[in-house]
């Protein structure tokens, strides 16, 4: 089966071409074709996963390469397929979610005038994503990366008649391009130094020391920039919430399993090449994203916007998990998140389909009307909140453990911020997700007209929900995932950075790290600790908690590589300890968040409106998404507009002035040339003509027309010749 893996992405490509060309004329507008091809892909992915699973080998690899572009007898660029455990899992995730989204769309998009085109776009999206997963070189992952960007543009802007939708499509595409540019630079650095692009070849070259030091860090950060764009990390997270303008199945497909996962997958794919500095960079961005977007999600009232920001936040978790060294944790969260977030999105689609509204303030009490949607949505919410027994608990717990371990091992107490921030945000996540569930499904209906209209969705819509909810339990993942997906050896470490130097650079980077945001987190965390006494672990460890240290960063903590002297045993003990602490604390915080949500929105012990009014500026700040859009409007967009206006002025006055000057010069010269032509050239021509006329009028008199005149001249001429000859 694994030998035929290349067929998996090609099938959706085929159905794309067929459906875009003749889809309208096919029976049922060709939806069965797209669904069928992706279902075959799903079957093959299951087969591949089964083979991989039976081998049960952490180092399993299936790698085919053949030359794609050769110059002379040197293969310049290769193409091929790389399947290891991560790829097999990702293949399964992508095909499962994609298949279910196809199925869901049959019901959701029923009757849309562009039905066949929608399915064609879904197919090209699946093709791009599967190609991206299977790619074995930086070049091909970049190609598919861009294809994913293109197809997401098509899908987000699917209802392009709506201006907001077409704007959202453009925004997603352009913001992604910003990140992709960094990705391209990273690839160019790699190609310029190593001269190869295959993952294995590049890692080998880096291991040989062809690319090291700061340049390697830059290459890593460049590649990570791609992930920032695609996985919607701060500061490029702005596109993802807007992308909710697309049809809801698209939101599920793009924001749960495919496009946003691509960035995390990329980071996991090129994991060995990151330097400690690059890891710290990645972790910082993950932390900022997960906190920032979670706070925004607190104040949103659009069901899909809440989910969108929660997606951003969860992606932040993954990225931070990868950044702090939790390779397995990050990818596990990617996998589990794909299932429960797809379930949440499709569930929200089901709700929107039923009540024709996206505002949770208008919903309520829907659990009686839509029992299946309610139960599946609740299961997925429990999963994302990190309740034990559900998949989110399993993976988020690993991320928290990795962050705690990182913080404990690090000589810099500031690094505990990763754990503390993530833990606090875990509480926020539970709170806002349950706020969503309570407002949507519990309580009394707020809009009776909409409530009376609501009904359970058709089977093609709830079957995917049930399947995805089923996949949101942790027993599917625990055990084998940790065994099969293991952190690859870093090649960057071999590249000649000695351990103390590494610590020094990390310290340096920590000082350089964006501190202001850390302050905000720690300040709030401190407030929370003071008021509720949660997060006991910070006290227990006796490590300086972030809010203890002055946030101004006055003490850079000279590089003391003390923590690096510990033995391996100690490290594993530390990891174990970190894991159990993380587990207890995350359960505690998650429960607290859920409890708080019920307190506020069900029991009514705290009136949300009064709280809202009490912290009005903060609420406005959050509801307006930290004013990121306004910030970008003011800086990037208005900046480029002003720049464009400046260029227009330059064009109008300087460039056009030059052109006009040249033109006037030309006119003047032409005038002179014209006069010359009139008087000199034409004068010469006319002179010749009048000379000819004058000469002719004289000579014409010679021609009398009388025969004897001619004969006389003839004879006279002969006589003259005779006389000349004679004398």
């Amino acid at each position, binding site marked *: 089966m694994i030998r035929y893996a290349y067929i998996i992405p090609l099938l959706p490509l085929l159905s794309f071409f067929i459906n875009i060309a003749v889809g309208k004329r096919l029976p049922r507008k060709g939806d069965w074709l797209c669904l069928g091809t992706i279902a075959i892909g799903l079957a093959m992915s299951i087969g591949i996963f089964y083979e991989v699973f039976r081998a049960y080998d952490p180092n399993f690899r299936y790698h085919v390469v053949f030359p794609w572009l050769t110059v002379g007898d040197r293969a310049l660029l290769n193409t091929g397929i790389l399947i290891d455990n991560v790829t097999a899992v990702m293949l399964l995730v992508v095909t499962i979610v994609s298949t279910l989204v196809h199925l869901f769309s049959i019901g959701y998009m029923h009757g849309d005038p562009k039905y066949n085109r929608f399915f064609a776009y879904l197919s090209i999206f699946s093709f791009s994503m599967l190609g991206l997963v299977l790619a074995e070189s930086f070049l091909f992952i970049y190609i598919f990366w861009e294809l994913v960007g293109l197809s997401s543009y098509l899908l987000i802007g699917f209802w392009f008649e709506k201006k907001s939708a077409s704007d959202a499509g453009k925004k997603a595409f352009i913001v992604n391009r910003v990140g992709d540019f960094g990705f391209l630079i990273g690839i160019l650095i790699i190609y310029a130094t190593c001269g190869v692009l295959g993952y294995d070849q590049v890692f080998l070259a880096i291991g040989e020391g062809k690319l090291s030091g700061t340049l390697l860090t830059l290459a890593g950060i460049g590649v990570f920039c791609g992930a920032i764009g695609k996985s919607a990390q701060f500061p490029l997270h702005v596109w993802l919430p807007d992308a909710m303008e697309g049809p809801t199945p698209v939101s599920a497909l793009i924001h749960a399993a495919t496009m946003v996962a691509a960035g995390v997958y990329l980071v996991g794919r090129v994991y060995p090449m990151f330097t400690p500095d690059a890891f710290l960079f990645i972790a910082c961005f993950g932390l900022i994203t997960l906190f920032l977007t979670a706070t925004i999600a607190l104040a949103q009232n659009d069901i899909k916007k809440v989910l969108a920001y929660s997606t951003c936040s969860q992606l932040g978790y993954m990225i931070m998990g990868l950044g702090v060294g939790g390779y397995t944790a990050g990818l596990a969260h990617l996998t589990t998140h794909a299932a429960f977030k797809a379930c949440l999105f499709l569930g929200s689609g089901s709700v929107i389909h039923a009540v024709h509204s996206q505002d949770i303030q208008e919903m309520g009490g829907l659990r009686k009307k839509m029992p299946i949607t309610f139960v599946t949505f609740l299961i997925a919410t429990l999963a994302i909140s990190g309740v034990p027994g559900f998949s989110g608990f399993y993976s988020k717990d690993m991320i928290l453990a990795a962050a705690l371990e990182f913080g404990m091992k690090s000589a810099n107490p500031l690094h505990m911020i990763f754990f503390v921030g993530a833990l606090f945000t875990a509480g926020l996540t539970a709170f806002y997700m349950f706020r969503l569930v309570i407002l949507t499904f519990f309580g009394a209906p707020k809009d009776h007209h909409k409530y009376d209209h609501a009904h359970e969705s058709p089977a093609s819509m709830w079957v995917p929900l049930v399947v995805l909810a089923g996949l949101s339990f942790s027993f599917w993942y625990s055990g084998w995932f940790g065994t099969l997906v293991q952190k690859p050896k870093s090649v960057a470490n071999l590249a000649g950075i000695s351990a103390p130097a590494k610590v020094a650079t990390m310290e340096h980077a920590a000082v350089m790290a964006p501190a202001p945001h850390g302050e905000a987190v720690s300040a709030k965390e401190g407030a929370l600790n003071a008021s509720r006494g949660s997060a006991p672990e910070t006290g227990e460890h006796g490590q300086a908690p972030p809010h203890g240290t002055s946030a101004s960063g006055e003490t850079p903590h000279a590089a003391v590589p003390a923590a690096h002297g510990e033995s391996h045993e100690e490290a594993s003990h530390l990891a174990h300890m970190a894991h159990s602490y993380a587990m207890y604390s995350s359960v505690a915080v998650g429960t607290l968040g859920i409890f708080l949500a019920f307190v506020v929105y069900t029991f009514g012990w705290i009136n949300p409106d009064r709280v809202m009014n009490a912290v009005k500026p903060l609420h406005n700040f959050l509801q307006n998404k930290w004013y990121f859009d306004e910030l970008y409007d003011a800086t990037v967009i208005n900046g480029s507009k002003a720049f464009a206006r400046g260029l227009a002025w330059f064009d109008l006055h300087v460039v056009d002035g030059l052109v006009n000057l040249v033109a006037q010069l030309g006119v003047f010269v032409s005038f002179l040339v014209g006069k010359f032509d009139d008087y000199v050239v034409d004068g010469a021509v006319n002179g010749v003509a009048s000379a000819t006329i004058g000469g002719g009028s004289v*000579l014409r008199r010679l*021609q009398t*027309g*009388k025969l*004897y005149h001619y*004969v006389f001249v003839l004879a006279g001429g002969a006589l003259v010749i005779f006389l000349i000859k004679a004398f």
Partner: protein
Amino acid sequence: MTLDKLLIIAAALFCCGLYTVMTRRSAVAVLMGVELILNATNINFVAFSFFLSRVMGGQIFAVFVIVLAAAEAAVALAIFLRMFATTGTVEVDVADEMKG
């Protein structure tokens, strides 16, 4: 009979022909004058050939000239016929279309 006497006869004949061409107004008469000129040259050809050359080039040339004169007369008379048809006369003074 010597060469110079023959040349004198030919020259006299030539002058007669030339005179006829220059003075007569009738085209046919002009044609006859041309015939005289041609025959004057014929005499010269034959005379020079007889007295000064061992080959018969002059005599043969004279035969050519006779043939030429016949052809010329035919063409010229055809022209005169056309001229008579258009103008009603064959007087050369009338045919001054080429007058400058």
